[in-house]
């Protein structure tokens, strides 16, 4: 009998639980349609993210927020497909008895990353405050020795913060100390103390890179029959979640990103994945370039801040009162750029943190829903 003959009969809707075979019927077809639509939406959304406007360069604060929105939308659709009108017993049988717990395990890892990144935004804010000191110094007219020294002091601290080694909050590079007592060995504690105070909220051995690595572990695309059923959107959601977390970690400083994986084992032939993989490769390239130099993250605003700050340090190095008119003008340009970046940060960092928090809450809620379903569907032990 073909699917059509079954359609009208009650018998056609019975799914024989003991086998994997689900009789093709109207309900199943609806599900396939939903899955297809879901993956089309995923593709569209990531395609949009890949062609940002000037205002949201990739990995800028506003782009990251768009990414988080994409996650929330995809997640909502995904939950609907998996859980709405779902017989709990279905999700406790193979392959879901493996896939769902794996998904939930990744969700827990994502929660930790959300927390680490939210904490990391504080160090971006710290840089913003240092930049603001430099700005307020150099905004004076006319600029004198005092202002320049003041700005220089702040800028050097800023550069040190930007070049902070993720690992233990100490400065790996030997830049000029931000204050006068650097040369005396007895004062090392003081120096280190300043940086260590920006210590992370996570345990010493926690590593963002390792965390991401462990989410990628065991990520295997569904094959064969599974590829056209529920395992497929589960895989998609896994990939999206991993990508979002990975992008956040690449952008925002958080503990121990050395060894951040740069390759995602996502098969290229998956339609919905093209834009996502494209983005991933672009970001990965940037990461590989910058990794060796040590940096505070690929956050667009931080990159721009670093450039301007470096130029201004050069300016302060060569400054002599009353200063060269051309150089002063150039410096003013950098100050303006820095001011703009600080403005963006001032307006955008807290909303970014709240947005990440929203994602955190959603993942928690979703996980609770899934755990609930698993509990209900658990077959009695005989």
């Amino acid at each position: 009998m073909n699917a059509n003959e079954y359609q009208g009969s009650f018998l056609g809707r019975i799914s024989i639980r003991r086998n994997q075979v689900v009789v093709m019927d109207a309900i199943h077809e609806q599900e396939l349609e939903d899955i297809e639509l879901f993956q089309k939406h995923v593709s569209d959304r990531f395609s949009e993210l890949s062609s940002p406007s000037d205002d949201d360069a990739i990995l800028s604060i506003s782009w990251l927020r768009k990414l988080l929105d994409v996650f929330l939308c995809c997640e909502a659709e995904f939950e609907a497909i998996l859980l709405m009108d779902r017989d709990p017993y279905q999700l406790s049988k193979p392959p879901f008895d493996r896939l769902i717990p794996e998904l939930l395990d990744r969700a827990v890892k994502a929660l930790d990353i959300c927390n680490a990144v939210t904490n990391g935004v504080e160090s971006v804010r710290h840089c913003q405050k240092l930049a603001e000191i430099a700005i307020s110094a150099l905004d004076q007219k006319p600029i004198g020795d005092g202002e320049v020294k003041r700005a220089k002091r702040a800028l050097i601290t800023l550069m040190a913060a930007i070049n902070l080694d993720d690992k233990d909050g100490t400065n790996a590079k030997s830049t000029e100390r931000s204050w006068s007592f650097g040369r005396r060995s007895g004062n090392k504690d003081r120096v280190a103390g300043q940086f260590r105070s920006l210590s992370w909220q996570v345990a010493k051995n926690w590593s963002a890179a390792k965390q991401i690595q462990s989410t990628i572990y065991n990520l295997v695309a569904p094959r064969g029959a599974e590829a056209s059923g529920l395992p497929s959107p589960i895989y998609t959601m896994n990939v999206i979640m991993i990508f979002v977390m990975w992008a956040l970690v690449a952008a925002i400083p958080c503990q121990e990103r050395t060894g951040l994986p740069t390759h995602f084992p996502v098969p290229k032939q998956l339609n919905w994945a093209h834009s996502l993989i494209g983005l991933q490769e672009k970001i990965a390239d940037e990461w590989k370039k910058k990794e060796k130099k040590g940096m505070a993250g690929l956050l667009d605003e931080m990159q721009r801040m670093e450039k301007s700050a470096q130029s201004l340090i050069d300016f302060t190095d060569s400054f002599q009162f009353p200063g060269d008119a051309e150089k002063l003008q150039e410096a003013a340009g950098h100050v303006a750029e820095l001011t703009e970046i600080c403005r963006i940060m001032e307006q955008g960092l807290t909303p970014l943190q709240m947005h990440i928090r929203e994602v955190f809450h959603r993942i928690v809620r979703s996980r609770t829903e899934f755990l609930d379903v698993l509990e209900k569907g658990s077959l009695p032990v005989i």
Partner: protein
Amino acid sequence: MELPENPNKDNNGYESAEKIILRWDSTASEEAREKMIFETDRHEADLYLQAVDEIQRSLSNASISNHSNAAAASAAAVDDQSKVNSTIQIAMARLEDEFRNILMTHSSALETDSLFDPSSSSFSTPSHHELEEDDSVSNEDSSHNDLLRLQLQHCESSDSSTYRSTSSIREVDLMPAEAVCDLQAIAMRMISSGYLRECIQVYGSVRKSAIDSSFRKLGIEKLSIGDIQRLEWEALESKIRRWIRAAKVCVRILFASEKKLCEQIFECVGTDIDDACFMETVKGPAIQLFNFAEAISISRRSPEKLFKILDLHDALMDLLPDIEAVFDSKSSDSIRVQAAEILSRLAEAARGIISEFEGAILREPSRVPVPGGTIHPLTRYVMNYISLISDYKQTLIELIMSRPSTGSRYSGDQSTPDMEFAELEGKTPLALHLIWIIVVLQFNLEGKSKHYRDASLAHLFIMNNVHYIVQKVKGSPELREMIGDDYLRKLTGKFRQAATSYQRATWVSVLYCLRDEGLHVSGSFSSGVSKSALRERFKTFNAMLEEVHRTQATWLIPDTQLREELRISISEKLIPAYRSFLGRFRSHIESGKHPENYIKYSVEDLEAAVLDFFEGFPVSHQHMRRSQ
């Protein structure tokens, strides 16, 4: 304000001030780097501050004079101004370092020894929260699932009596008054020169590391959510206890004191600034503190977690007003919000656990019957659990707001029990849940009883278990009050009926042997007793009795009184019947051959045999004595 008349005098003042500032310029001289002004000498410090004030004065004078005398705004004046600014910058840089130094000198961890009383730790006196350990738990059912394997150990003395010192906000002095004065003096100068940002940066970074060390001392760990999911619950319980103690100290003493310190140091410069410094210092640590509670609130639910989660909930609830008092500014919104979120998640978790508990009881699947028909471990576990729940009545009454769902939630192959809500009018949702739990438990027990091949044993099993339920309810005043005497009566009736059913199942057929009908033969020539029938009767009776004796001696009724009552009830029916039977028919047997084969037992033998019933011990075949 008039400009000073004597420019020379003014210049002298300025010049000497400038000298002092330049002398202490650490970028310029080795000597200046060697020591700290504020560590050295009170006098030096005062001189320095005066010098700074002097420079600041001349700066404002210079700008006044620049404004008022346009002609004087020459290159020279600009030059001068720049020099003054330069001097200011040197002074500010120095003051920043001094500020940092003073802070670091006085940034050790909070002295916590006086706050904790190690002798009154939470392991000393078990309060009424302690779970009684029932003896004679039968562990032979090998198909126990996790639910049954759990042992509830709940020893917790009430926190508030142990740590009186952390029951409300109490600010302590984090550093000596002199240091605070110095910091205040420096801050004032920095801020009036426009160096507020540097001030906040330095302050925040040093105080944050002080808080970090206090955290370490309080045993606040940096655990990730993943770590917490992986830990065994017992390990987490002690971490939760520790966290509750630490959180009280943090909010009420540590954070409150930091706030006071900020207020003191930035007293002269307005609330926004001390707020900013406070948040700069405390925001990160506060979030770190709450992250632990948050991780607990989202962990997987299972019944044994309920009580610690309620403890955590209560502790946080208790702390909430103080959290709101300490974090009262706009910039600390996120912290208050997080605390409220955690509280509501903990409440949700408690509700969820109870719901899942109810479901788990319903689905608890062990099919191996408990030997001897005694109390099932599930019954013990559930009744002990809800006794504990009734101890937490105060909290749970607030949290549990909806009635138990008795319908399609448990859809599956099994049907679910009924609960008549009409009779339970006026009961709190919590009480309804507790009653529902008992209903569900009984439903499950009914199912289990069907696995006994012997119907009598099935009845005995129900009798034992429902009786146990009744005893447990009676034993806890809170539980009894919530369950209500009406339902208690219902339960009592239930186990009494089970006793009756048991008796019917076992003894009807035994006593049937002792009936009168069928023994008399009436015919035209003889009216008397059929000896063969009578002999059959005795034989059957003896065999049945022996079988019952052998079997039911191994059955168990753990409750002494119940055991006695049932035996008496059996005796009351058995003994008189046998005595009367013997009385009427013994002569017929004794007049025949081998009477001892038929009248094997005396009345006394029977009385003695009944005493063996329900002891839970097997008896040897010989054990049913004969006195003949």
